[in-house]
């Protein structure tokens, strides 16, 4: 079969264990970093770590790494549309009171 489907690839318990440990370590890291004063970067670091954790979950626990191109495209388009909607909403709120703050 040329294109992989979700069922063809069985992810090993070892991979799952490594992923789980990585997620727990990242959780401890983000909790630890929140104790350090970083100004605006507290939010940046916390969200960056959250994005990394989410990507690990999607790729391995949700098997996206081993899924068909259709599934990959679906997941990516969903995130793309969500980011587009957030950007447009924020652009609206930022520009409504333009020059009046």
């Amino acid at each position, binding site marked *: *079969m040329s294109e992989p*489907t*979700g*069922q*063809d690839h*069985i*992810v*090993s*318990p070892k991979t*799952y*264990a490594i*992923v*789980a440990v990585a*997620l*727990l370590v990242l*959780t*401890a890291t*983000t*909790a630890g970093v*929140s*104790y350090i*004063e*970083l*100004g605006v970067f*507290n*939010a940046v670091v*916390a*969200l960056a*770590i*959250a994005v990394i*954790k*989410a990507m690990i*979950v*999607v790729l*391995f*626990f*949700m*098997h996206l790494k081993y*899924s*068909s191109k*259709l*599934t990959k495209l*679906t*997941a990516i*388009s*969903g*995130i793309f*549309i*969500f980011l587009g*909607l*957030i950007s447009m*909403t*924020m652009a609206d*709120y930022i520009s409504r009171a333009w020059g009046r703050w």
Partner: protein
Amino acid sequence: MSDSTAIAHDAHHEHPPYQRHHFETVSQQFDATNFAMWLFLLTEVMFFGGLFTAYLILRNWYYPAFVVGSHQLSIYWGTANTAVLITSSFTLAMGVWCAETKRKSGLVLCLWLTFILGLAFLGIKSIEYHEKWVKHHVPGIRFSVENFTHPQTDPEVYNEYHDKPLSPDMASKTELYFFLYFAMTGMHALHMIIGIAILGYMIIRAKQGAYTTGHVTFVENFGLYWHFVDIIWIFLYPLLYLISRHT
């Protein structure tokens, strides 16, 4: 079933009992169901996305109120719950592996562990909700801004953060913070409750051997749902518990 349909069925081709007739192959059936599950999850992204966007905008508008509101949350409970949820995702992923490799007792064990960890998450969440109720931080008639106009009335939080008193106007916006807190974590908890109910059903079916026949679609797709709910919490945790600790 009449004789004629039975003959028609025998005549066409060999296939496993779990393959529906409108699919060419088991693989096609799996892919179609999997695709449908991902589409459902995209609608869920949009659903939670609205709440996240509201939080983003209102936090910028009423920043001081959202900061002192966040200070009411315990980082210990939040971190513990993150660990519980990640572990439950791991046990369910192991359940998917057990189903794929046809290990029935392993699958039942993994489903039980996920079930218990899901309940543990809700237990911790209810401890946090109860504290909000006792401190009059649940939006509604009982809501009180006293802890925010007079921070010393809440010595435990005051000694940790030394928050300055808010004006009554800004303090009233903390109700908005707690409204979003309950809306976001409540919707997440509702998804957990639905997930736990389905897990209960799956434990019964797994004991009957329903998922260890080579037909893993249900376990796999429930896994997608459970991990998705995990991802929502992965974002709720920093936004609600972590990013306002120093301001």
